[in-house]
């Protein structure tokens, strides 16, 4: 479904990704794990079109994304939950969700999708008229994910959804991600919370210093020696 081949990417003169190749198949829940600054967020930015790679190819459902702008990529069916959620704090919860359904494809089904999102995150319905800036950390993350779902994505990109949340909330969010995947949305999850992510995912990639250094089934990687040593202690 999504295929990155030998992607190189840089911020100005600083190269961040080196020959990164990743594949995500339809229906999968794939995770990309690695330490801070390894290039996880950059990889997602390349997929969602916020950063253009310097070389390499990237395709989604057989269609090249190299020249597509960020808004076009959303229309094609890829939606990203950015790091920290980046919800619109000055707007209401409902307005945030409405904006998630901005693309024409999603807008016509807006009401039905909204019901679905409220089923997954009942808390958002309770808070729908509240200003998003007044939400707690966990609620903000739910809103960010709900907002991304409003675009009816085929592929959902999640950037560190567990960041800054209490352990009990992390479990909740991860359960919801599993549930979203079970309902047919393909997921690429970027995480620093390696153990939880590996337990959840069908397959995983390990990224370090901008290079993919390991890949395999989530369970297998849990026993992968260097991963154990580096992340699980």
């Amino acid at each position: 479904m999504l295929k990155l081949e030998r992607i190189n990417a840089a911020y100005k003169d600083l190269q961040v990704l080196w020959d990164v190749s990743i594949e995500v198949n339809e229906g999968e829940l794939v995770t990309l794990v690695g330490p801070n600054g390894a290039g996880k967020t950059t990889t997602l930015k390349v997929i969602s079109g916020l950063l253009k790679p310097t070389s390499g190819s990237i395709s989604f459902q057989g269609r090249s994304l190299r020249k597509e702008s960020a808004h076009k990529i959303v229309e094609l069916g890829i939606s990203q939950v950015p790091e920290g959620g980046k919800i619109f704090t000055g707007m209401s919860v409902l307005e945030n969700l409405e904006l998630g359904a901005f693309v024409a494809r999603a807008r016509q089904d807006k009401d039905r999708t909204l019901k679905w999102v409220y089923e997954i995150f009942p808390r958002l319905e309770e808070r729908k008229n509240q200003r998003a800036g007044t939400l707690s950390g966990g609620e903000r993350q739910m809103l960010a994910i709900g907002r991304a779902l409003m675009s009816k994505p085929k592929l959902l990109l999640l950037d560190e959804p567990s960041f800054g949340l209490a352990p009990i909330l992390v479990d909740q969010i991860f359960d919801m991600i599993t549930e979203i995947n079970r309902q047919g949305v393909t997921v690429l999850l970027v995480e620093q919370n390696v153990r939880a992510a590996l337990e959840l995912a069908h397959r995983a990639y390990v990224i370090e210093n901008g290079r993919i250094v390991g890949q395999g089934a989530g369970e297998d990687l849990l026993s992968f020696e260097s991963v154990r040593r580096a992340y699980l202690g």
Partner: protein
Amino acid sequence: MHVMLVQSLVFGILVGALYGLAAVGLSLVFGVTKLLNVAHGELLMFGGYATFWIFTLYGVDPFLALPVTMIFLILIGVIVYGLLFARMVKLSEETKIQNTLLVGFGLSLILQNLALRLWTADDRGVTTAYSGWAFTLLGVRFPIVRVASLGIALAALGALHLFLQKTYTGKAIRATAEDWEAASLMGIDIHRIYLLAFVLGTAMAGIAGALVSVGYSIEPNMGLEWTLIALIVMVLGGLGSIMGTFVGGIVLGVTQALTSCFIGGTYREVVGLLIFLLVLIFRPQGLFGAKER
């Protein structure tokens, strides 16, 4: 003395409404695109001349000609944005501000001299059959065109407010103003939103200019003064609130009028700048703006 005070207040409110209208355009453009268009006053001047010439050449009532003036200004906005500012929005924050200021001052000089060449340095104003009409209430005079201008300013701001709050496109504009990166992840084409915000700002300047040409007068060098007014009001009202900006305009208008009345006309502009400094020092978020969270 009492009547004079109230009269100053009334005149201050009437001119302040136009200050607010001018500032809302500047504020909208700045809030969404982060471009500070210092040629905003010149765009306002073009709105004034458009109204003046439509009236002088074709005898069309200036208030009825407002839609035409707006369309004319929207066209100018599209050209100016497409040729100059579309390149600026892609720059990093610091270079953006520097380059925009340079380009904006250049543009303002060009537009000023263009107006001077085309229409001479004469003061112009639209004088309709009803221009001199006024009604008097308890000894206070209300010039009819200025009162009508206040109504139109309110209507324009109300319409803009509703558009931003209620429509999908309006929400996309607010989202882009808050966080362009998140907005583009919603599938919003932010460059179209930038263009739209710029053009809306120009249209607001056009209406303001039209109203200035009816209630007051226009001339090629008026731009800088109006840019300054809009800037002061924008800071006074605080970013992001249309009604706050409008009230900021009224505050400036009333303060200027009272200054003219009690201290002397020469201090009118000084007082504006003084308020500007005081607000920046003691209340940088503006009188009505929310504190940064």
